[in-house]
């Protein structure tokens, strides 16, 4: 059994954050925090230890998701996956993130993504197939995609 993941949720929509929390926990992982803005996200990154942060692009203080990812990237204490209905707003370099889960995702799409990420974080590279709706960043594409199942 691979060790479960500690997840940080950065999402301005309460409903989506709640559901995501439920899905993460159903899959056997834990949620260490929920932030709705860049400021909250910074504090949370500084005070909690997460393996993965799911980051929406649009937050309560504007399209600051990319900055959140950059902040996490500097701290080097978690990996970022964007989760957005607007993947076109993600910069080409993905601000160091693993990739993006496009909204609307399916329940199974997210569960598969969690399994894939768990493998990728704990025992890289992941052996599961890349779930539909999950797009890897160019950087991770080269290290993860080629070795996948």
């Amino acid at each position: 059994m691979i060790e479960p993941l500690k997840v940080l949720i950065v999402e301005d929509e309460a409903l989506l954050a709640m559901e995501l929390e439920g899905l993460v926990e159903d899959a056997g992982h834990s949620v260490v925090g929920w932030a709705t803005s860049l400021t909250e996200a910074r504090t949370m990154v500084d005070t909690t230890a997460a393996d993965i942060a799911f980051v929406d692009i649009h937050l309560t203080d504007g399209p600051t998701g990319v900055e959140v990812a950059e902040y996490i990237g500097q701290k080097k204490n978690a990996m970022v996956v964007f989760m957005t209905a607007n993947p076109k707003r993600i910069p080409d370099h993905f601000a160091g993130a693993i990739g993006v889960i496009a909204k609307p995702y399916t329940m199974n799409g997210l569960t598969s993504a969690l399994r894939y990420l768990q493998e990728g974080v704990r025992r890289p590279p992941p052996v599961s197939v890349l779930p539909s709706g999950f797009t890897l960043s160019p950087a991770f594409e080269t290290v993860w995609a080629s070795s996948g199942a």
Partner: protein
Amino acid sequence: MDWKRTREPADAWRMTDDLHAEHGKGDPFAAAIRATRMSMIITDPRQQDNPIVFANDAFLRLTGYERDEVMGKNCRFLQGPKTDKAAVDKVRAAIEDRADIAVDLLNYRKDGSSFWNALYISPVSNDKGELQFFFASQLDVSDRKSSEHRVKADKDRFEKAVQERTSELEAALEAQTTLLHEVDHRVKNNLQMISSLIIMQSRTMKDESTKQSLSTMLARIEALSTVHRRLYQSKDVSRFDVSDFARDLVSDLLTASGRSEIKSTLDLEPIVISAEKATPVALMVNELVTNALKHAFKEKPDGTRAGRIGIKMSQPDGHFNIEVSDDGVGMADASGDASFGMRLIKSLARQLRADIEWRDAGPGTKVIISMPNEPQQKGNVS
């Protein structure tokens, strides 16, 4: 005309001017040149700085100078501040090369006013091929030039107007695209929220059959969500790739069912349909695959419910065919048309003007859908 044989021509002209042309008087050729309305001069390249050695009256009228002010001078006194240097260089080069040249030059009169001079220069050599002089004629083409300028100004104005209009339209298009993206973003978020509500509600339900209904409902909504996600991922929002969608849907439904003993066979031609057909087609495929998963595979003596689900999509001339098959129990015992799933499939088929048929595939069931599919024109946003 016999002077030509006895004298060097340039000398003859000098004499013509200097001596008020005793000789020229009797010479109809020289008299014509002196009297013509066309401005003409002759210069002598054999003298220092190629000076004017003859100028007719038309030249003096055109430029406003007296004869003694121009004789012996180089023609450059006609140039002024706005004379095109490049055009002057061309003239100089032609003179050095002893070549003909025709060029429009902005020149200046004695009073400082300017005129457009259609200048024509040609070298004249003697029988031995030695350069004797240059012959130059000047025509005032200021009128032509100003209408040329007017035409050019009109053209510039039109071009500017077109450019302005184009950038207005581009801005309008940009605004519309932004709006489309904004609406798309909201629709996606809302679809996600609807799914979230169902998932969370389902989580609190104890009753298995209620949970079942909610999960069937979730599957239908997720089929819609997947259509929407795929539709706006592509560049052209008016076209929809059904084969890609089917691949996503089947892998999603199979893994979601958690029944790894069920295998799938996909035989999918890349097929593009119009956006308005995407949702009904997607819902229909979702119902059929869900049904196969739910009903086709009965428990075997070894406790497993293994089986195979196949999807085939093809487009023989002008048609779009979908086959969803399974190798399960078949539908001989099916209860008829009363249930919601079947009604939904049949209504969607009507909407799509599709023929749908359930066949006994022995073993299992094969559902064949066939609908007209006009060739998709690119960029046809409806």
